[in-house]
């Protein structure tokens, strides 16, 4: 099967998730296409991470359907969703702090190659996996610290590693939960460049509070407030929307939107 830019990869239909009496997501629908960066905005506690958790399989939805390339994957466990091409990064950095940068990437790439014989070799002797780790370290700008212990990296570098590990698993769909959070200006602009390059071959869902980055990257923007979809459309429409302004952007206009 060959896919062209514009193909729908992931589709969420009417996703709802309750935590006790709290509706963290109510009837949220979204379409992610290859070649598109779809930004998901909303104030703290709006339900953005909950939405990603449902798409990645970390949280079962209370109701609703998730389709990958037209197949219903709502009931698949998180590890199977990763295997069929849904990759996610975490809002709170989620790396293996005692392993080196490369070992982290190798461990991620290794998950795609589980022939019984291969896993009983030292990880750095597995050529295909090591090659993939070099590719993603280069993409994420981590080549200079490949052998450094991940726990000793700067915060920004750990965020880069977080992304490198997702890429190492060769996902078609990228669910990125605040990839720029806590990054310095330089690291941040490098990450924006990387995301722009990844757009071509991936469908990307970007949760981000950095509005400059969002408006620089997003093809489509969806705004979530109190778990409900407020408005969805191209950036110009969202910028101009009175509903978004009053409900969200307008709250602290001119300053940080988050």
């Amino acid at each position, binding site marked *: 099967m060959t896919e062209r830019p514009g193909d729908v990869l992931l589709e969420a239909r009417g996703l709802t998730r309750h935590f006790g009496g709290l509706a963290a997501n109510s009837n949220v629908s979204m379409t992610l296409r290859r070649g598109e960066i779809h930004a998901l905005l909303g104030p703290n506690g709006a339900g953005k991470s909950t939405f990603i958790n449902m798409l990645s399989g970390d949280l079962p939805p209370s109701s609703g359907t998730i389709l990958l390339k037209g197949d219903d994957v709502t009931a698949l466990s998180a*590890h199977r969703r990763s295997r069929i091409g849904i990759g996610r990064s975490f809002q709170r950095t989620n790396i293996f702090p005692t392993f080196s940068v490369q070992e982290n990437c190798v461990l991620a790439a290794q998950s795609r190659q589980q022939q019984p014989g291969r896993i009983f070799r030292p990880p750095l002797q597995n050529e295909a996996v090591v090659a993939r780790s070099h590719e993603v370290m280069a993409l994420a700008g981590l080549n200079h610290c490949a052998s450094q212990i991940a726990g000793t990296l700067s915060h920004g570098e750990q965020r880069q590693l977080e992304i490198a590990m997702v890429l190492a698993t060769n996902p078609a769909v990228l669910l990125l939960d605040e990839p720029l959070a806590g990054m310095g200006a330089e690291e941040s602009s490098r990450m924006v460049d990387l995301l722009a390059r990844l757009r071509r071959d991936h469908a990307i869902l970007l949760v981000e509070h950095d509005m400059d980055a969002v408006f620089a990257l997003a093809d489509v923007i969806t705004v979530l407030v109190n778990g409900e979809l407020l408005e969805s459309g191209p950036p110009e429409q969202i910028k101009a929307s009175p509903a978004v302004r009053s409900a969200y952007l307008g709250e602290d206009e001119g300053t940080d939107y988050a």
Partner: protein
Amino acid sequence: MTRFFRTFPMIAALAVLLVFPMFGQIFYTELVAKTLILAIFAMSLDLLVGYTGLVSFGHAAYFGIAAYAIPLLTPAGAVNAIWWILPVSVLAAALAALLIGVFVLRTKGIYFIMVTLAFAQMAFFLFHDTDLGGGSDGIFLNSKPTVTVFGLEALTLENPTHIYYFVLALTVSVYLLLRWLLKTSFGHILIGIRSNEHRMVAMGYNTFHYKLAIFTIAGALAGLAGFLQVVLTGFVTPEMLAWHQSGNVLLVVILGGIGTLIGPVLGAFTFIALQEFAQGLVDRWQLVMGIFIILVVFALPGGLAAIPARLRRRLVKGADND
């Protein structure tokens, strides 16, 4: 240099262990053999506790099941070649671990501790309260397994010195095998599960399969220790599966240093030495033992295996100050 400092003490210790029976009394030869068996048992538990983050409180079950397999599978009076009785006994423990693992590995944290204990208690009462394995008295072996190579008797397992070398060879083999295993991708996957299972799942690992694999391997190696214990003592009792046996081996791992292979070995020697010393000294030897373990846990996080690294750090700091 660091490689030398790491391997030299090990080679020296091995040399001491090799010549030891030529000088010590039989009592001590048997005591060290018992210690090495405990070291294998503790290394197997550390695969779960230290490397995969699975705190099993029922590891004695597999130790005991392999032990009971010997009298149960050998018709009375038959001469048992070790070449089949050893694998069969280890396999019995592995199979038990595989079956129990399928259930217990669906739980996490405190629940995992409780269900591993519950399964071990079931195994204990199975042997303690039924006539299957001689009830609460246990069973004596009629004869020890025979070790023949090309029809010649290579070792006599009636002889404590022969048992000692047999146990020593297996201890070293298990140590080397695990050292290799933990350096492979499989070992890294286990450490990944301990460190952050959620991330492993997000990267596409079916962590249940890996946990079941290591649970089975750990059960098999605990079984090997149980087998050797029976070869050493010549009898099997339900006490081998009792919960305080599971607790003791967990203490050995914590004492020695979890997440290392040498830790359980150091822990085993300390534990047995302490037991002998305290037992001779006072009636309430378990009290002395308890106090010592509390001291180690508080004064030496990382256990005995962490001492060299601490000393090195201390020395480096001292050199910097000069």
